[in-house]
């Protein structure tokens, strides 16, 4: 009791039942609104502290570092200001980074739409009145449980992520011989990793499925009476209703594919950071890898904006 009195009645804070006196001077009336905002803020205070330490500070500090040449001397850190040289160097003198970055962009532009199409297809199939719905749902959600870096890498190394039947069709050869290298490369990568792409659809299928189940059945019945077939009702009813979900899924898919630990750009950034990759005589290490990470992040955000922009254009032209 004594402790409680000391805690709430002192020079700094003096609490009364309808007002608080701060620093012996500032008198604040306790209203219901103020009370609730103080309680609310104290509930999220964990997150605020965490955000400052584990999000805002690292983000700001890594941007700061990206402007420097960083050398580690034991525990001390030696900074030489470089301006935007690190960023310029990535594009001018690091052909490997530029190459894998372009590859990453092309892969995203292909893989994200494919993921969405397949997720929607599978969700619509499961949403049919079929038997064994639960079994199929279990199978399609399995990747979420078992997609872990080393396991996937192992399967990739042993060729278990490419379907043998796709290779034997000779489609890939046809594409490579007939198309420009810039288009053929990501396409070939796509065929090589089609399984991996499909394995990123677990959560997306669930999102679509939940969305599909919320569409009123009566709308379909009404449209059927008016003579609409399944094809028309997909384009005119299903798609417009789940359009907002597609935006969510685009963002989720792009982010989860971009931060997946087998992404080449990510591996390269880590190697540069740990000094395991050298870029000629360039500034490597912390500063340079921070710059690379920021370039990568910017590109990722641009890809998301591009997709979201395209989706909103479609939606507007439809209205």
């Amino acid at each position, binding site marked *: 009791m004594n402790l409680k009195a000391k805690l709430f009645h002192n020079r700094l804070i003096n609490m009364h039942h309808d007002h608080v006196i701060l620093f012996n001077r500032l008198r604040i009336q306790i209203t219901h609104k103020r009370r*609730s*905002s103080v309680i*609310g*803020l*104290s*509930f*999220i205070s*964990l*997150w605020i502290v*965490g955000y400052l*330490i*584990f*999000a805002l*500070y*690292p983000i700001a*500090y*890594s941007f700061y*570092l990206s402007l420097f040449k960083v050398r580690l001397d034991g525990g001390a850190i030696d900074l030489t200001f470089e301006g935007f040289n690190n960023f310029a160097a990535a594009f001018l003198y690091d052909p490997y980074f530029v190459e894998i970055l372009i590859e990453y962009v092309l892969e995203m532009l292909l893989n994200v739409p494919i993921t969405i199409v397949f997720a929607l297809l599978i969700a619509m*199939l*499961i949403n*049919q009145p079929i038997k064994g719905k639960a079994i*199929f749902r*279990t*199978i*399609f*959600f*399995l990747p*979420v*449980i*078992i997609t*872990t*870096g*080393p*396991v996937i890498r*192992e*399967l990739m190394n*042993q060729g278990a992520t490419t379907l043998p039947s796709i290779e034997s069709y000779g489609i890939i050869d046809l594409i490579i011989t007939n198309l420009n290298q810039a288009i053929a490369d990501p396409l070939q990568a796509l065929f090589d990793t089609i399984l991996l792409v*499909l*394995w990123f659809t677990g959560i997306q299928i*669930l*999102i679509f499925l*939940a969305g599909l189940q919320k569409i009123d059945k009566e709308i379909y019945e009404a449209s*059927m009476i008016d003579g609409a*077939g*399944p094809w028309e009702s997909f384009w005119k009813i299903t798609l417009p209703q789940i359009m907002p*979900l597609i935006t969510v899924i685009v963002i989720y898919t792009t*982010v989860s594919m971009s*931060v997946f*630990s087998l992404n080449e750009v*990510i591996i390269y950034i*880590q190697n540069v*950071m740990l000094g395991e990759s050298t870029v000629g005589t360039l500034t490597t290490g912390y500063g340079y890898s*921070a710059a*690379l*990470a*920021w370039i*990568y*992040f910017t590109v990722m*955000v641009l890809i*998301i904006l591009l997709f979201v922009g395209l989706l909103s254009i479609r939606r507007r032209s439809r209205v």
Partner: protein
Amino acid sequence: MMKLSEVPKRVKNFPQGRAYKRLRKILFGMKFTDGLFYKVSVYALLISLSYIYLYPVLYMVTGSFMTMEDIIDVAVQWIPSSLNFVNYQIVFSEIGYFSTLFDAVYLAIVPAISATVSAALVGYGFAKFDFPFKKLLFILMIMTFIVPPQITMLPMFRMFSQYNLLGSIRAFVYPAILSNGLNAAIFILIFFQFFRMVPKSLIESAELDGANAFTIFIRIIIPLAVPSIIIVFLFSFVWYYNETYLSGLYLRGSDLLSLPLRIDQYISNFTSIYPEGSPARERMQAVKLAGNVLTLLPLLTLYFFTQRYFVESIDRTGITGE
């Protein structure tokens, strides 16, 4: 005997015939979607897609039972010539499976519990109280999801090394308890959506009875939120268990290693001894697969018993619009 001239007439009439109509009804139904043709294609698509999803798992499981002869033998593609557990024995004895598994579960379960507790508190704060800059803070919270760990890992790595947190589970627990761990934004969102649906009158009546906000949270809100708690904990556990990128960085060179990393390490040590193409190295493929099966087995068991919660989770995030 039938006259020849009748034949064309019959053929011409066939489309209007009863048999044709019945066949059409069986194949395409009254409205196409209830016909046999449609059903068969739906099941065919589902089964072939399931095959694509299950292929790596099947590959892994069957491969893990293969002996060296089976791997080299081209005739043996799917079914091993005999069911042998040699590969599993290697994993068990060389890696010390159970102690590593214990470490891996410990490495996943403590951050997962921390993340669940703090996400519940923060989600409740966002859902039921009004305070200045709430919208801004909420947007910042969601934004943390899209910031790739590559941005923050350099400063975090330095910070952890300064405070001697590298190689310790605390490097994962501290961010988790402060709601900034792995995918924390999703977990906060799940709780936020759930708590928003808790009727305000319930909280107000408890307030009238003299309960303070924290008592209400513990006594009333938490018991209601059990399904959400299970979902968040399960997802958090699975993601921490599978996490190898940050743990590879923070736990580098320490004894504490997650299971995937431990098996990875053992195998890379092993393969560096033997040259490319040597029989011992060929055999490693099967051992690796056995290791992967053993890595995933705890998760698959967990998933088998709790899949209902995983499947329901999306409804609880509310992103499909309530």
